[in-house]
Each structure stands twice: as structure tokens, then as C-alpha cells.
């Protein structure tokens, strides 16, 4: 299940936040916010996606740039609200 969660998030980030012909190798540890791939406004769309996809509600206090800074960190956040994911 853990790998499936990572795959879903990684695939979504690649599809939605990288340009089609971007020659970037995005991994689960690539810095997303501090690396400028996902800006603080786009982070909201990522949060919405996670909430809808995993039927969770992430409070604003938890939706910090640090918590969204990589696919791995995002997965940790999702599991806080959906331990079985």
C-alpha cells in the first residue's frame, strides 16, 4: 500500500507540475517547494488532490511548505490522516 501511495503522488506531481518535455528526473526526495517545482499557490491544488483522492481533510496548520517539500514527506502527511495508505 505504501508503494502504491508513493506511486500515485509521484505520478500526479510529474503529470501536473512538470512541463511535458522537461528533462528532469523527479524522485520521491526531490525538493518540490524549496526547489521551485511547486509554488505555495500550486501547493493548494496538490492539497486538494490529496484530500479528494484519499478522502481526508488536511488542516491548514499541517499544510506547510515543509510538509509538502517532497513526495516522501507528502506520503508521511497523508498517512497521518489515513494510516492504512
Amino acid at each position, binding site marked *: 500500500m505504501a508503494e502504491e501511495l508513493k506511486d500515485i503522488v509521484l505520478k500526479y506531481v510529474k503529470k501536473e507540475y512538470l512541463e511535458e518535455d522537461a528533462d528532469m528526473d523527479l524522485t520521491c526526495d526531490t525538493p518540490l*517547494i*524549496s526547489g521551485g517545482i511547486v509554488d*505555495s*499557490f500550486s501547493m*493548494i*491544488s496538490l492539497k*486538494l488532490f490529496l484530500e479528494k483522492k484519499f478522502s481526508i481533510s488536511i488542516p491548514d496548520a499541517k499544510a*506547510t*511548505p515543509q510538509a509538502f517539500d517532497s513526495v516522501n514527506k507528502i506520503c508521511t502527511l497523508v498517512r497521518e490522516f489515513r494510516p492504512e495508505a
Partner: protein
Amino acid sequence: MSNIGSYEDRVALFDWSISERELGYKKGDIINIGWYCSDRICQLGNGSKKALLWENHEGLTKQYTFDDLRVYSNTIATFLQRLGIQPGERVCLFMDRVPELYIGFLGVLKMGAIVQPLFSNFGDESLHTRLSNAKTCAIITQRKHVAKVRKILKDLPDLRHILVVDAGASPLKERELAFDLASEPKVEQFDCYPSKAETPSVLHYTSGSTGQPKGAQHVHYSLISQYLTSKWVLDLQEDDVYWCNADPGWVTGTSYGIIGPWSNGITQAVLDAGFGSEHWYAFMQKYKVTVWYSAPTAIRLLMRDGTQVVRKFDLSSLRHLASVGEPLNAEAVHWSREAFGRPFHDTYWQTETGCIVITNVPGMQIKPGSMGKPFPGITATVVDLHTFEPLTEPGKVGLIALRPGWPSQIRTYWNNQAGFESKFKNGWYLCGDRASLDPDGYFWFVGRDDDVINTGGHLVGPFEIESALLEHPAVAESAAVATPDNVNMEVVKAFIVLKPGNPPNDDMEMDIINLIRKRLSPLAMPQKLEFVKSLPKTRSGKIMRRVLRAQEFGEPVGDLSTLEND
């Protein structure tokens, strides 16, 4: 001792010739911003002084002296000239905060072209709207953004050259060429274009209530305002290390992220990275930043992480803090006193003013939550919403109005003189914001006077969003309005009427949100979306955004006599 000294004395004795004298400019002289920000500083004997301390998110660092700025901007100017680009043509800068963006800005101006900086997070449609309107002839960009240019290239017949600053070995396509600043032969001598006071310099696009974004046309004489306001409001002094958070895709990032500090010969630090409170504090600690120009949205994000994080860093170098983009709430002023031992000073201005016009200068008593007072040389008041006569009653809400004629005021909107002229009433330039004045002459911000959405300090036009929403196959009609937000003051909310046979669901919601984010920009992306059966309209069919906006803010909806019957 601050540069401005006594505010009252400065107001009483003010003349813009103070700035002209300090810059060694006389009426009728050549005035080229690119030269003033590099060559002149070298001529003053400061060529070896650090001009740019740059770092990116990976920790890569680069440093440039003022002499480096001079030579590298010469190099870029020469390269553009050899491509056949003529003075007065538009050259777009479409990059993250890399050194080529800052130095390229000077290079374009030096060879007489008009520089058109655009926010690198813009999507292809936002880019197309602005390049097409300006008939831009060249764009300087990075490999990571070139795909967006390729998508719209066939619809941009005027765009002759696409310069990629980090092309490396990646294959280039139609109209593209590699431009590597470091490996290009350095140009020691360059004859700057002999621009005069009224020669166009910078073209910044800004959003309004109606129609597509307008190109705010600045001239080289804007330097006179930008130099002096940087010196007096931001209090930039010889040994300062200055950090401006703004991206040069927006006017703050050029007026006060390039022109202001460098025409004053000040060292500035630039961090090419996304937001992160610890990263920001570590950056300021490392470069011993002394003057910091930020924005309320960023300050509120820092507040959310608390003062304990601040205590982990040595920020004792900080001596002056200022803020711009949206009203600075009183809580942020109080918090900055607690966190940094000094308050943020609010500054108010906009793309069209080119420089700070209402502000809290160093030494002035700050009333937390107030915008401050007019900068010396700026005649500002609040006028009646209908008669446009100045209001004399303290506390009464009206429109912020400025007496035209300061050096950095825009001269027109690109190809839209009528739009420019519509901003003036009864001899006043109207900023489009509502405020009141207190008995001490302090301005207090109330809100926008139109449908423009101020999100995170950036103005977003509803028309542009609604036009893009219609590109979604399921959207029949829509209205984009502001809704309150704790961090960004306002964010975009879209009300959507779907075409028959398209039931709303989560996938469609994300699809619509992501469409706007990618086609326009993350700023324009609706953070909230509501599917509705119909929209409030006038009898003539015009969508009444103000009704929806009032609902969002819990305000009275006002006169509904023109509302169409249900």
C-alpha cells in the same frame, strides 16, 4: 541616522531635483537605467564592490561585482544588437531568479530595447496574451520554461528569437538559440543607447477588472523616483546587504529588486528558491542581510511557523524591514517587533505608480495597520467615490487619488491610451483602491474599488480567468471573484455553471482548477470552486460579480435593482 531624517522637513523642502542632482542628471541629458545601475557605480570607484550575492535552492552560489554587472550587461546588449534587435522593440525576460534575469534587465535597457519581464510561473496562455499584445521580438528564457514558449510559437509571428540561457547540449528548435553568459566573449566597451527621460524602458503587465491585462509603460526617467524612494524609504546605505523577496516578473522586483538598489550602488542578495522559513532565515544569517523588503503574505507564513524558529538564527544584522503588496495587518507589525526586534514598515504603490507613493518612512511613528503618509513629492488624498472631490472628513471612505506628475508614473498602457486616460478623474490619478484618512494624515486601506483580486500581493483580473474557464469543455459560464484568505488576504473563487449532461464531481473540479493553474498561473488558479445553477446577472446579461464577492466577505450586497429576475 536614517537617510530621510525629518519627514516633515523633507515634505516642506521637497523637489525631485534632489534626486537628479545626486544622480548627476540635468534636464535634457541622456538617462539610461542600465548605465546608471552599472557603469556609473564603476565610475564612482565602486566597480569592485559586490552587487549581487546569489544562491539557489541547491546551495549553488554566485557573486558579481558592479564591474561584472557592467561587463556582462554589455555582453548581453551586444548579443541582442547582433541579432538585429532595434531600440524600442520589446525583449521579454522569462526566467526564474537566475543572475541572467537581473543582468539581462540591464543589458536590454543598455541597447535601447524595452524590457518586458514576465513571471516565470505564467502558463502558456498568460504568456501568449502578453507577448502577442506587445509584439515582443525576443524572449530570454531557461530550458525549464522553453516548452511553454514552444506551445504558443505558431501564434507569435513577431517573436523572432528565443534565447535559452542554460541550453547546454539539449536540442534546440525553431527560432531558438543558446546564450551562455559565462562562455560568451566579454564585452568591455559598449555605447549605451542614448535614451532620454521619456524613452520607454520597462513594460509590466497588470490586471484590471475588464479585458485582458494592460502593459504599463514606464520610461527611463522613472529612475529619479526609484533611486530616491529606495534611499529614503528603504533607507539603503553604503554598507547594507539588501534582500527584496519580490520576483522581477512583477514591478516590485524591478523597481526595488534591480533599479533602486543598484542605482544606489547597494549590494543585494537574491535567493532563487521557494518559500521555507528556516531556509529564509538561514539565508539572511549567511549573507548578513541588513535591509529586508518583504510582503504580508510571506510575513504571515513566517508568523505561522512562530518566533521559536527565528530564535535558532542570528539575525542581528537586520536593521530595517519594509513590506509591500497588500495591507500589512497590525498583527504582523506586532509580531515582527517580537520576532526581529523591529517593525515592518508598510509601503503602498502599484505597477502604474512605478515607485512607493504612500509609506511609513524610518523614524515616522508607525500606526500598526496604517499605510502611512505620502512620500515627499507625492500629493495624495482620498476623494469622494462619485464626485472625485477630496474628502475632508476623517475616517470617511473614498478612493486613493494622486496628483499626476511624479517621475515614475507610467506614460500610457501599451496600445491602450483610452484605458490609461480612464484612470484620471477631476485632475487626479485614481489607484483603484479605497481608503480613509485619519486626523493625523495617515492613510488606512479599505479594499479594492473594482473586481480585481489581490492575492498574495498580486493583482489578478477576473476576465482573464473567466475567459480561460470557458476553454474547459464542460463549463457553460463562470464568475471569478475574491474570497477572504488568512495567508494571502484574498484568493480566487470561481462560480461555475456546467453545460447540461456534465454532473459536477471531484475529478472535474481538479481538472478545472489545474486548467487555470497551467494555462494562466498558480496565482489565478481558483483555490475554491462552487458549482451553481445560475449566476446573478443584470437585465442586460452582465454578471454581477459584486454580489458574489459581497457574499464571500459577508458584506451587504448593495443595490440589486438591476438584478435579472430568477
